[in-house]
């Protein structure tokens, strides 16, 4: 017996948000996403405005709106230079990573 709030017609997989997609439907959901250049640009734009409207475009925005972005930037740059920091250069002056790892 259908209650008052129940939706009888099923929503197509393509239009569901990620958290509403069931696990078995995940591959078909990924394949149905728009991967054209304008689609990817639209995804970046949506992500940017989602962050912007949540943390910065508020009445009393704090400094954490920007510092979160900068912290992510630092982590991103660190991941870029990870490979280089881990190489071993000279006998008497090891890279910062080697020196910190020596004590583990």
């Amino acid at each position, binding site marked *: 017996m259908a209650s008052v709030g129940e939706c009888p017609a099923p929503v197509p997989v393509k239009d569901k948000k990620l958290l509403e997609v069931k696990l078995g439907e995940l591959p078909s959901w990924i394949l149905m996403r728009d991967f054209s250049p304008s689609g990817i640009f639209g995804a970046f734009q949506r992500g940017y405005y989602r962050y*912007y409207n949540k943390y910065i475009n508020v009445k009393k925005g704090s400094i954490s709106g920007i510092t979160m972005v900068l912290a992510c930037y630092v982590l991103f740059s660190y991941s870029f230079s990870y490979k280089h920091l881990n190489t071993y250069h000279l006998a008497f002056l090891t890279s910062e990573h080697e020196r910190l790892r020596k004590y583990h």
Partner: protein
Amino acid sequence: MNENLFASFIAPTILGLPAAVLTILFPPLLIPTSKYLINNRLITTQQWLIKLTSKQMMTMHNTKGRTWSLMLVSLIIFIATTNLLGLLPHSFTPTTQLSMNLAMAIPLWAGTVIMGFRSKIKNALAHFLPQGTPTPLIPMLVIIETISLLIQPMALAVRLTANITAGHLLMHLIGSATLAMSTINLPSTLIIFTILILLTILEIAVALIQAYVFTLLVSLYLHDNT
């Protein structure tokens, strides 16, 4: 140790493609635009700063020089944000690459010179000879003034590159010196750490000052030629 020291200045690449482009495209994300009169705090502070600097910079120009105000203000914002972001750990500063600074300096300088030569050719040529020079000295002085004119873009680019690179290098060196001394002798570590803190404050100042100097010189060249 030499390669380790200069390694942070290598332009980052992803599979051979320049990721430095991404690093250059990142600062505009921190400067939003708005179509409203009353905005959030970020945009309000940025607009206040931009108004302050643009008024300070563009008062000395005439009407024709003020057509360059968009170019100069965006230049100072770009250099300042890029330099300040480069002070974060592990980040890449595009202004340490001479290629980028040359690409910024040469077109701007050439633009001012060509503008001067197109509009008021007599005035532009008159810059080559300062007033009141004794007659025998004139040929030599013209040569010297020409050389000093042609060296302006090089000086602009190399000044910015050298200042930022030297600052980053000093911070690397003193930082690794602090780390090395921490196991040996603690009081000297504190001294070196104080030096590091002072150096960081200096670097913040240098980042802003270099942006200002670059833009100021371009606007001076513009003032000479309008």
